[in-house]
């Protein structure tokens, strides 16, 4: 029987949403598989989340150790290696933690690695078929994963339906004594909070958001004018912040701000999942992009194929004339 383990990340005693998505993913891999949640941490927060997980998972393993209080991937890897049996399938999120832990774990467990999976298309023998994206979401691919000696798989958060309510009545198994030697060559020091910027994009009902399609720093003015006409502010995708054209506080996405506007104007933004990950509350999305195949058109409500440098000023003056 396939054994699947789901690593449950949590913060301040709250499990990440992906904890509710693993059971759906696991069932898509193999309906008959056993599914076990694994949590590492320390103290009351760990106990609280572990207990909650018994409502979703038939078995919940906790590993409690002071060195696991903060999830340092090198330390977590050691704890998992001493706990999860060889040949198992291990699920974790494709986020900054999963990206830190999963590749190395797959080497140490001599298992296959499949990253950022958005769907599973069934198992044939020991070959698992899965879907993922490449080139920033511009294309989709199927991959065949040989799981005969196990697999470490990161899934894209939000890609699998969250299970609702209490679906299991499991028990917590304490495997803290298995943790073994947790000494590491990488030591966690602290988390430095992101700086608060000049404007707060998280409160805006409307956002004029620009991406790499703005092409030049001087063109940002064009977006500022549209934002002014729409009585709001400019937000952006990551490359604009990387280029230091706008400050970090303006960035929408998983490594930026989470925004909940009613209307989101995506101007020259391709629509990567890290960008869309910061867009919550099902806004009305208007996408303007010169590439008719841009992935943003798959998620937008309204799409316009145009050069934003020409389109935005026209829209601005039409709004100003209203």
């Amino acid at each position, binding site marked *: 029987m396939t054994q699947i383990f789901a690593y449950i990340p949590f913060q301040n005693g709250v499990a990440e949403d992906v904890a509710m998505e693993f059971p759906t993913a696991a069932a898509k891999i193999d309906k008959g598989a056993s599914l076990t949640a694994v949590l590492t941490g320390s103290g009351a927060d760990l106990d609280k989340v572990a207990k909650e997980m018994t409502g979703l998972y038939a078995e919940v393993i906790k590993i409690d150790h002071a060195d696991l209080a903060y999830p340092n991937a090198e330390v977590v890897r050691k704890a998992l290696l001493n706990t999860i049996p060889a040949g198992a399938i291990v699920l974790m999120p494709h986020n900054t933690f999963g990206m830190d832990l999963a590749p190395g774990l797959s080497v140490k467990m001599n298992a296959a690695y499949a990253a950022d999976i958005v769907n599973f298309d069934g198992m044939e023998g020991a070959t698992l078929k899965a879907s993922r994206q490449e080139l920033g979401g511009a294309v989709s691919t199927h991959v065949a994963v040989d799981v005969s000696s196990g697999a470490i798989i990161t899934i894209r958060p939000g890609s699998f339906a969250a299970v609702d309510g209490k679906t299991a009545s499991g028990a917590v198994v304490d495997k803290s004594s298995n943790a073994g030697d947790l000494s590491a060559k990488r030591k966690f020091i602290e988390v430095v909070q992101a700086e608060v910027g000049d404007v707060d994009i998280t409160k805006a009902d*409307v956002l004029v958001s620009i991406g790499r399609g703005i092409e030049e720093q001087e063109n940002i003015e064009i977006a500022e004018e549209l934002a002014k006409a729409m009585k709001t502010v400019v937000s952006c995708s990551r490359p604009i912040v990387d280029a230091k054209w706008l400050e970090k506080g303006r960035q929408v996405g998983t490594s930026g701000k989470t925004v909940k506007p009613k209307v989101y104007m995506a101007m020259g933004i391709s629509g990567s999942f890290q960008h869309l990950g910061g867009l919550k509350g099902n806004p009305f999305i208007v996408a303007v992009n010169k590439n008719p195949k841009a992935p943003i058109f798959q998620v*937008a409500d309204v799409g316009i194929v*145009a050069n934003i440098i020409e389109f935005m000023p026209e829209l601005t003056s039409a709004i100003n004339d209203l």
Partner: protein
Amino acid sequence: MEILVCVKRVPDTAENEFELNSAGNDLDRGDLVYSVNEWDNYAVEEAIQIVDKVGGNVTVITVGDSESEEVLRREMAMGANNGILLSDDAFEGSDGKGIATILKAEIEKGKYDLIFTGAQADEGAGQVGGMLAAMLDMPYASLVNKIEMGEGKIKVGREIEGGNQEMNEIALPCVLSIQTGINEPRYVGIRGIRKVASVEIPVKSASDLGLAAGSVGKAGAKTKRIDYFVPDMGAGAEMLAGSTDEIIAKLIEKLKSKGGL
């Protein structure tokens, strides 16, 4: 400080409209424009800045075909001192582990204090750095957006969710995957590339590296791409067409009804 930076030649997402071929199972690769993986330029820039401060050498390395030489030259034009091309038909079809195995074989022939990769490349897996570190038994940190040099150890910042920064102390030698935004990669002009056009770049094969057939390449891959496809994403956006004036009139109506104006 000896720094190795692993780089990759990838299709440029800014320059291409990706289409499937007529069989629908691969990209139409006819006239794809290739460039250096975006993340790698930040990794090379960071390496150059460190060496400028503390001395040493920057070596850029890639696994690829003969065309990959151009990305090595570009990074050498930025200021990397040496380039190494790992190339062999036997490497084709390697998965992440295969690539890491090939790189490891060459890395073990040298002595590096720091090994950088980009945080991810065209496949978006972000896997080679972490695998390489595990194979070399070196510590690893991904998505690094700050490096402070110290004696025998360094302080690194990792970019985590929400743009927060996780600070770590990490012993040398180590492997780091570099996130965009850590610096501002310098511009490379035609003249810079011309300057390094005749610098010799050693090419190493599977046998040079002592790699057994089957340990890398398609045969050794546990994760294989089967095909490309167009996912069923539902209806997608309502595309507004017509003259610019017509489009703007329609858009304004929609914005009014949705609370945008």
